[in-house]
Every structure is written in structure tokens, then in C-alpha cells.
């Protein structure tokens, strides 16, 4: 049996949108090093329910295996916690020791309003994808798709950008709350493939505009997004987005 230890938590509690929130202190005495961070929060909620004085803490998750992009959380000031290329659900309590204090906050941005406690509304990302994150040609089933030859290196790079799970950590960690890494990743994925070519200009302009409309900030090239991205998406995506955007505008594409 792994040894159990105690940690102190300061968890952001907020009743609902537009309500004032605050950090609330909790102490957990039965934390196990093999627990994931989310399992530790499950244990906290069991404790809260057993005490019966308040609602359990709301937090987002789905797959708990690092592929869906649902989990969020800013842990001790870092989106997805201290480890590089790791989602909150993949962070384990062995990274902490007895007596540690951990501050847990939601992803904060005007474009990600808090729904309750640690749950935020990330539908702004969906709207960015809606305006251009698709291809209109019929790709058919797998053999059809393969009938268009694509250079291996192009396919690999497109895949690297396609690994973005839309978690929003890039926005949460950005001092400007910019969504450039997310938008750039979607664009870099689709714009380099022949299937994405017909809408390349339209897509780039539409997605860049939507990103601004949602209230995300400008990019100041801090590269903090790349540091927190659980998929290690490179800020080259942002440079590429700028290039494609200006090319489209210079080509007279309707802005």
C-alpha cells in the first residue's frame, strides 16, 4: 500500500456566472501518491458530501486519459499543473508531498466565463472552429482519402497540429489571454493539406476574426502557451497563421 499523506487545498468556489467567487481552504488527510489530481478532487468531494454542509466542487473532465481536452484547472498558478506536456487528468499526486498547499483555480479569461466553481464555458473555441475549421470536399472513406498523395512530412506536421485537444490551457496561461495557439494549430493542421486548400484563405481570415470577436487578447510572443500545451503544439503555428492571414488579405480575400 502506498503511504497516505495530507495536503492543503485552496479551491476557487463560485456559485454561478457573474457571482463573486473566493478561494476556500480544505485539508485532505488521505491522499495517495497514485491518485491523479482529479481523483484527489473526487476524494475531496466525498469528504464534502459526507460533511453535508455545502455542494461538492464542480470541475470538468471526461476521458481522464489525456485525449479529450475537458479537464482544465490552473494548479498553483500553472495551467494543467507543474509538468510539461501533461493534462490535469494525467497529473499524479506523487508530484506533491506531505503538507503542501495547492491553489486550484479555473481557466481565467473573459472569453471563458465561469459556469460554476472550476467549470468554465469554452464554447468560444467551438465558434472559432465553426467559422472555418472544416473542409468542404468529400473526403469519402479511407481509401478515397488516400487517393490524394500527401508528402509524409506534410502529413506528419498536419497530424502534430491536429493533436490539439482544444483544452484552452494556452489561453489560460497567456498573460494576454490570447487564443492564437489554439487557432493557429487548427489552421496549421487544415491549411497545409490539399483537402484544406480550397478554403485556406477564407478559413484563415474567418477564424482570426472570430478569435478577436470572442474577446481573446493579442499575442505578444511570450510563448507561455507552448510551455503549458499538453500536446506541445509549437508557436510556429502562430507564425504560420500570421503569414497565411496576410497572404490572404494581400490576395484581396474579403476581410
Amino acid at each position, binding site marked *: 500500500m502506498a503511504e497516505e499523506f495530507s495536503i492543503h487545498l*485552496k479551491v476557487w468556489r463560485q456559485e454561478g456566472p457573474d457571482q463573486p*467567487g473566493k*478561494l476556500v481552504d480544505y485539508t485532505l488527510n488521505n491522499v495517495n501518491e497514485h491518485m491523479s489530481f482529479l481523483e484527489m478532487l473526487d476524494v475531496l468531494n466525498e469528504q464534502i458530501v459526507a460533511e453535508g454542509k455545502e455542494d461538492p466542487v464542480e470541475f470538468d473532465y471526461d476521458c481522464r486519459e489525456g485525449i479529450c481536452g475537458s479537464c482544465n484547472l*490552473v494548479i*498553483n*498558478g*500553472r*495551467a494543467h499543473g*507543474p509538468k*510539461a506536456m501533461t493534462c490535469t487528468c494525467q497529473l499524479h499526486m506523487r508530484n506533491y508531498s506531505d503538507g503542501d498547499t495547492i*491553489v486550484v*483555480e479555473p481557466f*481565467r*479569461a*473573459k*472569453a471563458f466565463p465561469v459556469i460554476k466553481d472550476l467549470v468554465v464555458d469554452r464554447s468560444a473555441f467551438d465558434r472559432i472552429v465553426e467559422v472555418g475549421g472544416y473542409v468542404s470536399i468529400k473526403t469519402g472513406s479511407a481509401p478515397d482519402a488516400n487517393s490524394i498523395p500527401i508528402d509524409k512530412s506534410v502529413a506528419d506536421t498536419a497530424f502534430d497540429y491536429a493533436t490539439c485537444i482544444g483544452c484552452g490551457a494556452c489561453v489560460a*496561461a497567456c*498573460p*494576454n*489571454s*490570447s487564443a*492564437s495557439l489554439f487557432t493557429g494549430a487548427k489552421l496549421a493542421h487544415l491549411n497545409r493539406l490539399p483537402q484544406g486548400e480550397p478554403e485556406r484563405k477564407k478559413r484563415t*481570415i474567418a477564424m*482570426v*476574426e472570430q*478569435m*478577436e470577436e470572442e*474577446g*481573446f*487578447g*493579442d*499575442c*505578444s*510572443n*511570450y*510563448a*507561455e502557451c*507552448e*510551455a*503549458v500545451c499538453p500536446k506541445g503544439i*509549437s*508557436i*510556429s503555428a*502562430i*507564425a*504560420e*497563421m*500570421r*503569414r497565411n*492571414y*496576410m497572404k490572404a*488579405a*494581400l490576395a*484581396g*480575400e*474579403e*476581410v
Partner: protein
Amino acid sequence: MASLLKALKSQVGRKILTGITGIGLIIFIITHLLGNLQLFGDAQAFNEYTYALESLGWILYVLEAGLVFAFLLHAYLGISIWWKRRKARPEGYSKYQSKGGPSHQTWASKSMIVTGIVLLVFLVFHLDTFKFGATETIMLNGHEARDLKALVINTFLNPLYAFGYTAVMILLGFHLGHGFWSAFTSLSMKHNQYSALIYTVGIIFAVLMAVGFLFIPLYIYFTGGQGALLV
């Protein structure tokens, strides 16, 4: 044309303009430093140089107008980016840390707005001191010229100026420490294999610029304006 103008007002466009004006200002300060170093040339080399500049006539006015435009546009963009970030996150984190690794969040990048505004305020005093400062008229190769070299030396004998300029030039170094690399990235020149190199070159460039500029006031001050390099 209309669509290009609109594009330049977008988030991406603004960043590209910040980069272009930033590079423009970098080119300007390189030439400015090379000009300043004429102080250490022949006795009248600096005054010859400033005389030649002033003799450019309308060309100089065009260059100066371009420079003023670049400065103001750059400052406006920088301030508006900073202003918008405050609106983009109304409720801040109670604890925030950088994750390190590929992050370029440094003292330099976090204080671009502060170092930038200091540079802007400095510019006003700087122009007042030198461009519009009172000078003696001297004869240079048969024509009248301003003795700017004497003005520079006299100014930096005052410790307030010598150390004030030094401090601002250190801040300029920090501004360039993030700015050089950032401008290249803004102009979408980021390629993974060159990025680290450009960042390092940027730091070296920033140090060279800061040291180059601050050496002049400090040298004048500590040699009492009599240093061997000055005569």
C-alpha cells in the same frame, strides 16, 4: 486596398505592424549608435557628421517624419495591446507562475510596456536636450556649424544626465532583449530550427546596443570630458 487596411487593424495585422515598426526603430538605433561613435573619431568628426545630416534638407525631414510616425504607431500599438489584455482577463489569478521550458516570459518580455513608456518619455527630454539644445556656432571647413560635440560633452558632465541616460539605455537593452526575437516572430519568420538562434542573437544585439549607448555618457563623465578618445 480596403481589405488590406482592415486586415492591418486585425489582431494579426496589429502584431505585424508592431513588428515592422519595431524593426524600423531597430534600424534607426543602429545608425544612431554608429553616428554617436563619431564622437570618438577625429576631433571634428562628430560635428562633420551632424552637419552632413542637417544638410540633407528635405530628405532629412522625410526621414524624420517617417521616424516620428514609426515611433508613435509603435507606441500606440504597444499600449493598445497592453490595454486589451486587461479587458481580456477581468479577474486575475491569485497565483500565477510561468511553466518555464519553451516559455519566453522573462523580466524583459513582461515589462515591454514599462520599458516602452520610459523610452517614449525619455525621447521628449532627449530631443529637447540635443536636437533643440542651444549650441555654439563654429567654423568647419569654411562653413558655419553647430558644435554639438561640445553640447554632448557638457551635458554628460552633469551626473544626473550621465547616470539617467545610462539607466534608460539599460532599459532599452531589456526592451530589445525580448523585442528583437519577438519582431521576427511577429513577422512570421519563426522556424523551429532558427528560433533559438534568433533569440540568442537578439540578446547579444540588445547587450551591444545598451553597452554601446551607455558607454558614451559614462566615458565622458568619468574622464571629465577630457578622455583620450574625445580629442
